[in-house]
């Protein structure tokens, strides 16, 4: 089979992960890959767990199934059940998590997954607050996470992400672009601490 990269995004209703998946797919497409974004729907409501998927590759043909063994798992909200979020991560895969806790050396990932995987963190909640990106008390972390996803995967440049954000984001556009750039620049690999 042709090389294909699979992402699974875990977040909560209201965090914009469905929109984030389509923005990322468009940026990947602008950078020369075919890409698809789709999501799992239930009864949509703010705060409920939401899953979105992205496939990217040089071949336009791709399977139309959900993603059970992703190359990348992206967690928008660290209070989600990590076993559910981490299920099926590929050996050698990558976890990107929205967390500010590694600064104090406290990032602990509770998971049953026994694959070797890399861990990257970005303080998306902190960056979102800094750029005044919130709906009420609910920080909108999706553009920060997009920047970080582009940086760690190398599949979407910041320029392409910005073009794509401009097409799909209307509110607080400048702040969202700055937030994506800060996510792109500040995402970092951390030691994996597992209990």
């Amino acid at each position: 089979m042709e090389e294909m990269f699979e992402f699974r995004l875990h977040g909560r209703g209201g965090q914009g992960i469905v929109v984030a998946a389509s923005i990322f797919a468009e940026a990947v497409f602008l950078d020369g890959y075919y890409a698809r974004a789709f999501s799992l729907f239930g009864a949509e409501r703010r705060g409920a767990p939401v899953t979105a998927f992205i496939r990217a590759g040089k071949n336009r043909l791709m399977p139309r199934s959900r993603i059970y063994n992703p190359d990348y798992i992206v967690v928008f909200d660290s209070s989600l059940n990590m076993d559910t979020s981490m299920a099926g991560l590929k050996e050698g895969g990558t976890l990107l998590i929205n967390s500010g806790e590694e600064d104090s050396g406290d990032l602990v990932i509770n998971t049953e997954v026994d694959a070797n995987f890399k861990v990257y963190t970005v303080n998306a909640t902190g960056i979102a607050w800094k750029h005044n990106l919130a709906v009420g008390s609910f920080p909108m972390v999706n553009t920060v996470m997009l920047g970080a996803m582009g940086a760690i995967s190398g599949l979407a440049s910041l320029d392409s992400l910005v073009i794509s954000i401009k097409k799909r984001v209307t509110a607080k556009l400048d702040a969202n672009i700055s937030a994506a750039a800060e996510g792109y620049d500040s995402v970092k690999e951390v030691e994996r601490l597992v209990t």
Partner: protein
Amino acid sequence: MAYELMSGSQAAAVAVQRVGVDLVAAYPITPQTAIVETLANFEGKGELGGEFVSVESEYAALACCYGAAAAGARVFTATASHGLAYMHEMIHWCSGARVPIVMVNVNRTIGAPWSLDPDQGDSLSQRDTGWMQIYCSGAQEVLDTVMQAFLLSEELLLPCMVVFDGFYISHTYEAVDVPDLEKTRKFIGPPPFTAQVQPEKPANIHALITGDMQADLVRNRHETMLRAPAVFKEINHRFAETFGRSYGVIDSVMPPGTKKVILAAGATAETVRWTLPELEQTGMVQLRMFRPFPREDLCNLFEAHDIEQVVVIDRNCSTGMGGILAQELQAAVYGMEKPPAVKDIILAGGIDLTPEMLVKALTETASLDKVEQKWGVDLR
């Protein structure tokens, strides 16, 4: 080429806008809502060309389309699942009245209980209503097929349903080549049919008739629909000359030495196509046209390749009999000199089909006897 990233639902709406219709009447229902939203946005920006009618129900949507089509208008509607079921009486009426209508149905399981996954039983259970049905496996195919469906429907004066899976296509964003507006309008041309209702010629239409008269009409409708594969191929021939793409009533991939074929309709066909390189001596058929059932095309293909076995992916189940595509196929190959054995994998409930499940299914269906079915949920 003007590629844009859009969902299958948006692709359907863009096709309608490119074709140019006089009237859209539709009622939103998950997972079809984005079609209605996108068309309403076109109208809001003055780009729809025709009138968008907000109706109070799906029944009213199709009744409204019927009335407008009888008056000579080019019309479009879209629905899903319970919405399609609610239209049922009007679905029969429109084909009996011989008005051209294009309707998109986005597959979603019919309750109870409430469910959102893309079981194809909603549209397949409308198979005897006199509508043509074409199933699509991706957003580009949706856009192109909706455009072509207008020509097919207007040529045969029979309504046409374009069908695709909820979420797997309706909510999947992917690259779609969007045809130029002027080029599309030139290709499609104005509606060629005559209005049944003409104010200057008052008449009572579809009044009470005898069974003998009805029999003539039913035969005519049936024989007309049997012309659909030939007309569809001719439309695709011209479509390819203008847009560089074309589709068949069935689309097959037959690697050398193929003895076994997987048959699928809709989104799962693409998963089959992706998995094919992993399977030995196995080919695939994407069933695009379901009504009329492309009996001749299928039998010719199986005969030309000496196919011994067809494994059908049925994202539906007719309770008390099994998968609907498998039943139709059994009937179609009956009478062949060497009919292939038909095996059936049932993905009722619209459950997910992964490449891994498909590989497993092919091993496990090999030993099934003639009437056994393999349940998709047992393949996980």
